[in-house]
């Protein structure tokens, strides 16, 4: 272990002498946890608990060795971040506060991450849009923040209902974007997000999006290891760019010339900086592959009819696949885990043989459909159907997917999805 790493480890153990409201000699719960690698944690014996997605996220955060959490309440995110407050009180998180609003939140958490500490925030639809200026600047600033995003309607009329249109606004920011299917993913993936985003050749923010209410406020089985374990701390010395801690020789770290000048060199520098950010997104794929067991999951590979989905739509598609199986039909399913980096090669390999492809989504815009079309263009003869989609808070009945499959098989032109 290098001296720097040793120092980082030592510093990660907070000194909580005389914490207001705590008895003398109080030891933060996080200091009593044992640090193990995420690979080791994934292999530990697990207990399965029936809990909401928000609770699953809380248990993930408990084991994530978070230094700093900042958030502003918004439905349906609040459930999780108020529980993060309890984790702070217990000593699992070292510092925590409720910020003024999302520009303040997203700016402050970028300040924390620039200091070299592990930083967490969370938001939902309108909050994400409000913080967009700040969070769109995170990748260029190379701050490995993890942002949980509990998706919610962003369109007028105002609604608190689930709808994941906001993910489309994250796709071209340079952020890493995961779209979790269920409560189990929402426990597993934040831990993965921290490990990957803090890899030195990545050093990028990562959002773990999940469909609000369907996952955050509904219960599902979540298998997890004992809470006495936590993943290793962030090493603030290992970044693609130095932390803003003034621990480097006083070179002019952030001087404006020539980036802000109007000349060819400045354009070139800015272009190469952007290229590097998006290259780092691609470099993250190998780590996601390791921790997530592949960037995609394939059910019934080789089927003529394939469904490609992410998030809660995967669960609905799984049920459709099961019901089709009962009828003797083999329908395939590709679960896309990482939206950024998009698993282009994997999706092509798993879908190019298909004749029919459906892309069920919980939004009006069909951002995943566009991704799939772009990815498979020139690689498949399949008809890629533009749906089915629900939005504005609607649920997606399994029957909707089954109806589409039936209409396609029967070539029922009276239906409007052709």
């Amino acid at each position, binding site marked *: 272990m290098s001296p720097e790493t040793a120092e980082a480890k030592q510093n990660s153990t907070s000194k909580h002498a005389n914490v207001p409201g705590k008895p003398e000699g109080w030891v933060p719960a996080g200091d009593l946890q044992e640090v193990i690698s995420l690979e080791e944690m994934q292999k530990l014996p697990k207990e399965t608990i029936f809990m909401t997605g928000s609770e699953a996220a809380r248990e993930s955060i408990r084991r994530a060795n978070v230094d700093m959490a900042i958030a502003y309440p918004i439905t349906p995110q609040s459930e999780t971040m108020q529980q993060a407050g309890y984790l702070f009180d217990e000593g699992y998180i070292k510092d925590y506060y409720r910020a003024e609003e999302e*520009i303040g939140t997203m700016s402050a958490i970028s300040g924390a991450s620039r200091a070299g*500490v592990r930083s967490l925030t969370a938001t939902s639809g309108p909050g994400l849009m409000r913080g967009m200026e700040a969070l769109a600047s995170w990748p260029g600033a190379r701050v490995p923040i993890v942002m949980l995003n509990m998706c919610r309607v962003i369109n007028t009329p105002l609604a608190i209902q689930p709808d994941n249109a906001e993910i489309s606004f994250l796709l071209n920011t340079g952020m890493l974007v995961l779209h979790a299917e269920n409560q189990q993913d929402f426990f597993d993936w934040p831990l993965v997000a921290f490990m990957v985003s803090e890899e030195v050749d990545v050093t990028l923010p990562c959002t773990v999006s999940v469909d609000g209410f369907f996952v955050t406020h509904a219960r599902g089985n979540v298998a997890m290891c004992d809470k006495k374990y936590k993943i290793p701390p962030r090493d603030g010395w290992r970044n693609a760019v130095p932390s803003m801690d003034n621990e480097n020789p006083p070179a002019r770290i952030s001087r404006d010339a020539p980036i802000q000048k109007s000349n060819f060199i400045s354009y070139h520098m800015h272009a190469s900086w952007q290229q590097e950010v998006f290259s780092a997104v691609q470099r993250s794929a190998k780590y996601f592959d390791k921790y997530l067991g592949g960037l995609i999951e394939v059910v019934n590979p080789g089927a003529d009819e394939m469904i490609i989905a992410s998030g809660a739509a995967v669960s609905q598609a799984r049920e459709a696949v099961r019901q089709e199986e009962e009828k003797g039909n083999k329908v395939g399913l590709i679960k896309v885990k990482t939206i950024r980096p998009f698993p282009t090669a994997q999706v092509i390999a798993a879908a190019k043989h298909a004749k029919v492809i459906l892309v069920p989504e919980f939004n009006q815009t069909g951002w995943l459909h566009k991704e799939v079309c772009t990815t498979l263009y020139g690689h498949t003869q399949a008809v890629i159907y533009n749906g089915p989609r629900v939005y504005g808070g609607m649920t997606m009945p399994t029957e909707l997917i089954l109806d589409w499959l039936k209409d396609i098989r029967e070539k029922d032109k009276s239906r409007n999805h052709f």
Partner: protein
Amino acid sequence: MSLDTVKPAPGYLEHLPVEYQDLVKHGQYGKKKKVSDMGKFKELIEEHPMCAGCAMTLFIRLVFLALPKPEHTIFVGTAGCGRLAISQGNVPFIYGNYGDTNAVASGLKRGLELRFPEQKKDVIVMCGDGGLVDIGFQGLMHSWFRHEKFSTFMLDNEIYGNTGGQESGMTAQGLVAKMSPRGKVDEKMDMLGLAKVAKLDYIARIVPTNPARVVRTARRAILIAREFGSTYVQAYTSCNIEYSIPTPDVMQDAFDKEKKEYGFEEHFSDRAKAYIDDLEKKDKAAAKAAKK
């Protein structure tokens, strides 16, 4: 980390640019510099692209001179003239998004306290009136009411200088500027009053007419913020371009402004006053002992 970070490994110094050699040999690291030392040591900020006669630049230079620990200081700024000079300094500078300074500084300072519990690091927000009271108002207010432990320096040129002279919240009532074609309707925002409402530990209003006083004020603001909570220094730094002040008259304008409506003010909380009195008494005793 220590002051040694500044010094290159033995044998390397002579191969570094002469500016860096000067920083190591004749810089202000580890030494307390006075205004009367200016010109006799390598300042943290020298070259800059500011307009000739810019009073803001003078103020920024003096604040850099006042830094108690430049090797453990980080500046946070936003769009505006000031960052053109601040970013040329030999101190890390975060040039963030519009009006995000006090939110970024809140997270940064807390993060640094977690990571370096034994090493106090000074976080300083320095930006213009528009960046703080217009687009950054919410972040500024909340950082004050949370009593975040960093200092905020407002470079108050009473206008949007960098974008070409639009009125800001700090522009005087009645002034005809871009975006106030009939004269500014509302009064100049009373930020000192708001700072008092937020019960800041140290509040000062200053015009850079007395360089030693600027250095003393800046140092007090930084040291009190390090120890207790938010501090605020509001400095009149005229925009000689937008207000058409001839370069040779910039300082006269500063004196006139100070006399008319921008007199020096300083407000301490009780704890900050006791702390500074004690600190400055010790400093004086040490200086006296050093002379003997």
